[in-house]
Every structure is written in structure tokens, then in C-alpha cells.
């Protein structure tokens, strides 16, 4: 088969170089799967060395991790429950990343979303449950959206670096939560652990049918799918990618870069705020210091591991939720500190970022460089 024939509407089963089109299609996409997976394996191998160096058995560690996170229906449900907030927290990083922004303060939006939801839930007590739950969701999303949207606005209108400002605002948000929970919103009955008044049972979010995982997981997966559609299939997503590549070029094209940035960061914050609302309505039952459990920070890792692709966030969140879930078992069974999981996460993060340097370096993933198959 020659080039001219291929160019003039030959069967699409062969590419321009004579290889099956399906093979080229797979090769082009394999890079985005093979490199992160290889990085994951290398990261886990390095962590094995670390575990060996502190005198424990890596085999036992990974076996314990498997048992604690993925080995039984019980542990899978536990991992899925932890994955739910991670999905939303990762979106808080992945959506702004489309615009070239590195937002790492999702923890603040989670915390404030949780407090806002708890406050609304208590204030509206007596109203029908679906209205209250809806209002809590809206309040959580609004609080988180305003918080991270402000980061985007500061970035665009004042050129304030979004990475630093979002993390500073996370600290401010936690202080604000402590102030509210110990002051005006405090339930006098909560002595040791200052909390807001507990939500009535009818305002709590249930588990999904047939499993011990609350509906937040479905909400998180839905949010990821919708975000993927937004990014890949709408003109806003397309515009955001242009603006992320080159702000000047986007402005010359007449794109409203300011609205894009505030809109994307606002939506990102709204998702994180929703994660806080779900923690309150489905897990804690009230807002307290447990809201700052670090989901916002693990979410950063999830987003980078998924290379900011909302669909890839779903499996990665499950993976990291499982690693998180196995932390307790590792601590008990192997007498290792609970920070073991943090070390693994940090190591994986570094290796994943390092793996960025390998994209575009392998001929196998780039059919344009293949030799002709004549």
C-alpha cells in the first residue's frame, strides 16, 4: 500500500505508514498509561528499599497494604469511602490545572464547605429533609467556590501567585473554622471536641444500597465525569486549554480569560466545598476539627498522578484511598509509624513528577517516527 492510496481514502484500518491504524491509535495513547504505571512501580520499589532500610519486610508491607485496602469486600468499601472526598478534592486541583494554575489549597475549601453546610443544616432543622440536604450542598459549594474563586480572581486581577495564596487561605480557613466552631456555632454539649450541633438523623446522607459506602462516592464519580465533559467536549474547556497555554494568545482571540479563570477556580472550589459538606452530612454528622483531615493535600497527589485528567482521577482516587485506608493496619501489624503512608505518598509524588521528563522520548509511543512497514 502506498502513501497516495492511503491519503486518498483507503480503508481507515491502516495509517499513513502502513501499520494498522488501531496499533497507532493504541501506541499514541499508551504513553499516558504506561509511563504513570511504570512510575508507580518504580516508586513502590524505592519505597521497598526504604522499608528494608528501617529493618522491615517490604513483602509483608505490601501484603498488609493489599489486605487493608483492597483484599476483601470490607476493605474495598473502606477504600471507596475514603476515595469519595479525594475525587472532589482532586478536581479542585485538576480543573485550575487546565488553565495552567497550581491551586493547592483545597483543604480550606473543604473545611469551609463543611462548616457552611453544618450551619445551614442546623439553621433549617424542621424543614423537609431533601430541601435541607440540597441547601447544605448549595451552601458547601458556595463557600468553597467563593474561597477558591477568590484565589483565581486574585491571580487574574492582581497577579497574586495562586499556589501560595491558596495555601495561605487554607490556613486562614482552618483558623476561621476553629473560631466558628468554638464560638458562635458551638454546641454547648460538645466538651472535649468543640463541634457544631449534630445534624438530625433525617438530614444525614445514607449509604448506597447494598454497600457500606455513602452516596458521596456516586456524587464524586459524577463530578469527575461532568468535569471531563466540560474540559474535553465544551467550548469552555477548549478556551481554558488555550488560555492555559498562552494567556496573551487567548486574549487576542477575544476569550474572556478573567471569567474563565474565576469560573474554573470557582467550580473547583465548589467541588472541594461539596466534599466538606459530604464529610459533615455523611460521615461526621457535625462540623469540627476532623474536617481538616488532609484530604485536600492527598487530593493534590491524586490530581498529579492522574495528570489532571478527570476520568483518570477515578481509579487513582480509589488507589490512594486504599493506601490511606491500610495505614491503620500497617501501624498495628508491623509496628510502623502512621506516617509510613505519608512517606509512600511523598515518594510516589516525586517519582510521578520526575516521570514527566520521559514523555515524548520513546519512539514506541510516536508512530510518526516509525519506519515504514514495507
Amino acid at each position, binding site marked *: 500500500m502506498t502513501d497516495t492510496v492511503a491519503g486518498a481514502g483507503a480503508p481507515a484500518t491502516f495509517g499513513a505508514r502502513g501499520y494498522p491504524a488501531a496499533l497507532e491509535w493504541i501506541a499514541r495513547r499508551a504513553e499516558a498509561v504506561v509511563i504513570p504505571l511504570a512510575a508507580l512501580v518504580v516508586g513502590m520499589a524505592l519505597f521497598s528499599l526504604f522499608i528494608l532500610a528501617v529493618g522491615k519486610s517490604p513483602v509483608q508491607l505490601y501484603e498488609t497494604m493489599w489486605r487493608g485496602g483492597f483484599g476483601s469486600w470490607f476493605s474495598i468499601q473502606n477504600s471507596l469511602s475514603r476515595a469519595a472526598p479525594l475525587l472532589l478534592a482532586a478536581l479542585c486541583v485538576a480543573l485550575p490545572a487546565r488553565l495552567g494554575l*497550581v491551586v*493547592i489549597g483545597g483543604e480550606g475549601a473543604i473545611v469551609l464547605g463543611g462548616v457552611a453546610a453544618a450551619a445551614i443544616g442546623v439553621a433549617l432543622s424542621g424543614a423537609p429533609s431533601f430541601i435541607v440536604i440540597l441547601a447544605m450542598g448549595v451552601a458547601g459549594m458556595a463557600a468553597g467556590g467563593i474561597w477558591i474563586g477568590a484565589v483565581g480572581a*486574585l491571580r*487574574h*486581577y*492582581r*497577579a*497574586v*501567585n495562586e*499556589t*501560595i*495564596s491558596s*495555601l*495561605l*487561605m487554607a*490556613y*486562614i480557613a482552618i*483558623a*476561621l473554622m*476553629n*473560631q466558628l466552631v*468554638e464560638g458562635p456555632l458551638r454546641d454547648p454539649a460538645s466538651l472535649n471536641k468543640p463541634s457544631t450541633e449534630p445534624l438530625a438523623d433525617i438530614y444525614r446522607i445514607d449509604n448506597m444500597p447494598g454497600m457500606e459506602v455513602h452516596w458521596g462516592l456516586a456524587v464524586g464519580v459524577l463530578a469527575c465525569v461532568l468535569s471531563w465533559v466540560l474540559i474535553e467536549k465544551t467550548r469552555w474547556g477548549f478556551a481554558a486549554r488555550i488560555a492555559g497555554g498562552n494567556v496573551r494568545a487567548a486574549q487576542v482571540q477575544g476569550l474572556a480569560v478573567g471569567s474563565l479563570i474565576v469560573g474554573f477556580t470557582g467550580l473547583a472550589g465548589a467541588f472541594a466545598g461539596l466534599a466538606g459538606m459530604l464529610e459533615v452530612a455523611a460521615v461526621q454528622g457535625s462540623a469540627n476539627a476532623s474536617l481538616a483531615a488532609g484530604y485536600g*493535600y492527598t487530593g*493534590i*497527589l491524586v490530581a*498529579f498522578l492522574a495528570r489532571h485528567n478527570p476520568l483518570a482521577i477515578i481509579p487513582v482516587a480509589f488507589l490512594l484511598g486504599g493506601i490511606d485506608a491500610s495505614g491503620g493496619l500497617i501501624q498495628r501489624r508491623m509496628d*510502623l*509509624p*502512621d*506516617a*509510613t*503512608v*505519608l*512517606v509512600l*505518598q*511523598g*515518594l510516589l*509524588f*516525586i517519582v510521578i*513528577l*520526575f516521570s*514527566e*521528563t520521559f*514523555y515524548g522520548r520513546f519512539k514506541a509511543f510516536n508512530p510518526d517516527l516509525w519506519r515504514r512497514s514495507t
Partner: protein
Amino acid sequence: MDATEIGLWGVPLAILGGAIRVSTPFIFVSLGEAITERSGRINLGLEGTLVFGAMTAYAVAVMTGSPWLGLTAAAFAGLCFGLFHGWICKFRGVNDIAIGIALMLFGSGLAFFFGKPFIQPSAPDLPAIPFGAWSDIPQVQAALDVNVLFLIGAALAVFLWWAFRNTRAGLILRVVGDSSDAARAMGLNPDTVRLIATGVGGALAGIGGAYLSLYYPGSWTEGISSGQGLMAVALVIFARWNPLGCFAAALLFGGAGALGPALQSVGVTQGYYLFYAAPYILTLIIMIATSSPSRSLAGAPGELSITK
């Protein structure tokens, strides 16, 4: 004169003393970050380096009985973290800001991992010089008890300010930070210069961490640093990469950090958590006030990604 008699005067006095005490880690981290950023890279991982330095210093001081050995170990650990950041960032496609975030998590995780057995025992403190000995008011004495590291930090700020403009090393650093191409044309290897600059920056952050665990607050806990390493990065931008500005800004931040405890000491407990957030709010306000969308920052190194 006893404590109650000086009344509200205790607040500014406590803020002054607090500014001196709280600012020292800021001084070291921000001077280290100023060196790194002058070379054209940003290391957000200094927060993790600070925490790991605090743990290392405490652990070594507990085991050897010498705070100075602890300090040296912390500086060495910080150097390793900095060199690692500097090395890994030279690869194409590796983002210095993202690596910084990863090192922040990794450094803290590693510190918590190894620091677990050292939460209980107590380590010897770094020595302080009682400049307030002339006074018989205990608050004045407390405020003027100045740690040697504060003085070293102040001297270092002046030295760096001088060295940036008057030494060969300072000029090389600035050339590399302003234009990799110009540096290469001069026969310099920007990656090597940045590697050294990030390493030195890490070592200084490690010393800042040692101060935290060995003097103030003076013990090792997992919550020992609450974003000081990160605020120091913002502070460097505010100080326009000028070491003397870093020193002044660090004092300002230290004062803001001491506001909450100072007010609490005279009985103002309302809004404690909000006063606790004062340094973060101050940092944010300063960043908003000093940034501008229409012009680049005066004095910014040309190669620095955070100001582009």
C-alpha cells in the same frame, strides 16, 4: 515592679519579644529562599525541609546532648533536600513548583516517620544571651532574651546583601537568575549554579527548623511548623529578593505571629484563633498590595517561574 503593674504595656513588649523569638526561623528560611530564587528557581519544599530539620536537630541533640551537633545535622539534612530539589529540577519537563509541593509532603512525612520516638524526651536548648539583664522587670528580661541564632541571622542578612552585589559568587548567581542564555554565553552552567543555590537554601531552612525544635517553641511535635516555610517564600517576594528586606519582613511576621499570645497574656481571649491567623492574613494582604497585573515586579529574577 511586678507583672500586673506594667499592665497593657505588656502587649507591645510581648510583641517585641515575640517578634525576635518567632522571626528567627523566618529569617533563615527566607534568606535561603532568597538565594535559591535569585538563581531563578523556586523551592516550595522548604516547608518540608523546615519540619525535617526540626526533627533531625531534636533527635541528634537528644542522642548526643549537644544542640550544636543537632543544628549541624539539621543543616546537613536541609542541604540534602535542597540538592535533591536542585538536581531533579534540571530535567526537562520537571516543574520546580510541583516538585516543591511533593518535597513538602515527603519531608513532613519522613520527619513524622522518624520523629515518633522523639516526641517525649527533652533536648538541650540552644543558648540565648540575656540582653535584658539590666532591667529588673521580668517581661523586659523575657523580651530581650535573644537567641544567638537571631544574631547570626541578622549578620547573615547583611552579609548576603553585601555579597549579592560585591562578590563574584553573588554576580554569578544573579546572572544565572536573570538569564540562562546570558549565563551560558559567559561559560557558566546554570544547572550547577542552581544546584548549589538550592542546596545552600535548603541548609539554611534546616537551621531554621533546628531553631524551632531547639529553642522556640523548643520541643519536637508534628505540628511544629504551621506554614512558616511557605510564608517565608511569600515573604521573599514581598522583600523583593533583598536580604535586608527579608530580615525586616521576618521581624514583621514574627510580630504578627506574637500578637495572639501577647493579647492572651493580658486576658484578651476573644477571637484567639483569628489572631492566630494574623501572619497568614498579613502575608496575603501584603501579596495583594505588592503584586500588579500590569508590570512585573521590580527586582524579580528574570528566570523565576512564579513571577511570569
